[in-house]
């Protein structure tokens, strides 16, 4: 199964072309995407530092969750809205971007980690809520979170570089990973 036909259809829509060719709109959306790191990644880092026992040790984990995670969600909404628009502006190249694919994989692992934390790890939170150094499972969650989100940010930045683009000579392995169409690769 490939989503390429869908991406090609998206790329041909009026609004996608308009966004792609816009002089201010695209940069404005991308800048918003980057500046939202302040809110989204910034609050995630602070919550994870608390879970690792490296900062805010005197603040209960439940308070950090209740007061800071809503801001993370606001940041996530901004990230998703701007991110979807950025993809919509350049669907085919993004879909066939190695970096974009890495980013999506890391994003999925990060999301599963969030779900696992709230579903499993935080289940007995009352027991360690005030602990300066939360139990190993919570600290592991924080390490996975920090490394996955760091990967998402780094790969996201790399999408802008065309080293592994399908229209450049690549190894068979990269063609396969990026889902390049052979005809395009030969061109």
């Amino acid at each position, binding site marked *: 199964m490939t989503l390429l036909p869908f991406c090609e259809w998206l790329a041909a829509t009026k609004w996608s072309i308009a966004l792609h060719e816009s002089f201010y709109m695209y*940069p404005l959306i*991308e*800048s918003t995407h*980057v*500046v939202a*790191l*302040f*809110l989204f*990644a*910034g*609050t*995630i*880092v*602070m919550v994870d*530092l608390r879970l690792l026992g490296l*900062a*805010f040790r*005197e*603040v*209960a984990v439940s*308070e*950090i969750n209740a*007061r*800071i995670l809503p*801001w993370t969600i606001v940041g996530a909404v901004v990230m998703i809205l701007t991110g979807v628009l950025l993809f919509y502006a350049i669907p085919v190249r993004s879909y066939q971007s190695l970096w974009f694919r890495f980013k999506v994989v890391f994003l999925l692992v990060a999301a599963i980690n969030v779900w696992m934390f709230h579903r499993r790890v935080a289940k007995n939170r009352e027991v360690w809520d005030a602990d300066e150094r939360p139990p190993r499972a919570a600290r592991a969650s924080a390490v996975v979170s920090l490394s996955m*989100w*760091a990967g998402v*940010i*780094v790969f996201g*930045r*790399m999408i802008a*570089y065309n*080293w592994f683009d399908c229209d450049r000579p690549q190894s068979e392995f990269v063609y396969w990973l990026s889902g390049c169409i052979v005809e395009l690769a030969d061109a």
Partner: protein
Amino acid sequence: MSWLDVFESLEQSGIGLVIRESLWLFPAFEAVHLLGLSVLGGSLLMVDLRLLGVGIRSRTPAQLVRTVRPWLVGSLLILIGTGVPLFLSEAVKCYYSFSFWVKMSALGIGLLYTFLIKHPVIRRGTGSGVQALIGMLSLAVWLTVAGAGRWIGFS
């Protein structure tokens, strides 16, 4: 000697040259710059949200300033440590970029504001009205730094 001359000789410096000649050094510094930006954002927000009355409530702003200080200073060092080489590799482009000058002015104001006004005012303690004001000013100036910084890439 004009500013442009200075920027031109900076661009010819060893570090600038090494980065320009490498395929991946510039992107690598950019990526670490963004990671630093995330930590900076968190360190600022934990205090600013508290000042605006929508953050951690069980600690005073002064206590939060003390808690975030190593992360604030550490992230600033990472941002400067990666930002300076990025600048050196394309100093002349920066000279002609309006965004670059906006960013650097905002950065200067942001640093002076944070360490000479915001933190001393917080340490002394003020009413909630003033607190909200200094929190808002902090967010405004640092968001300008980040936004104008990204815009350098579009010029």
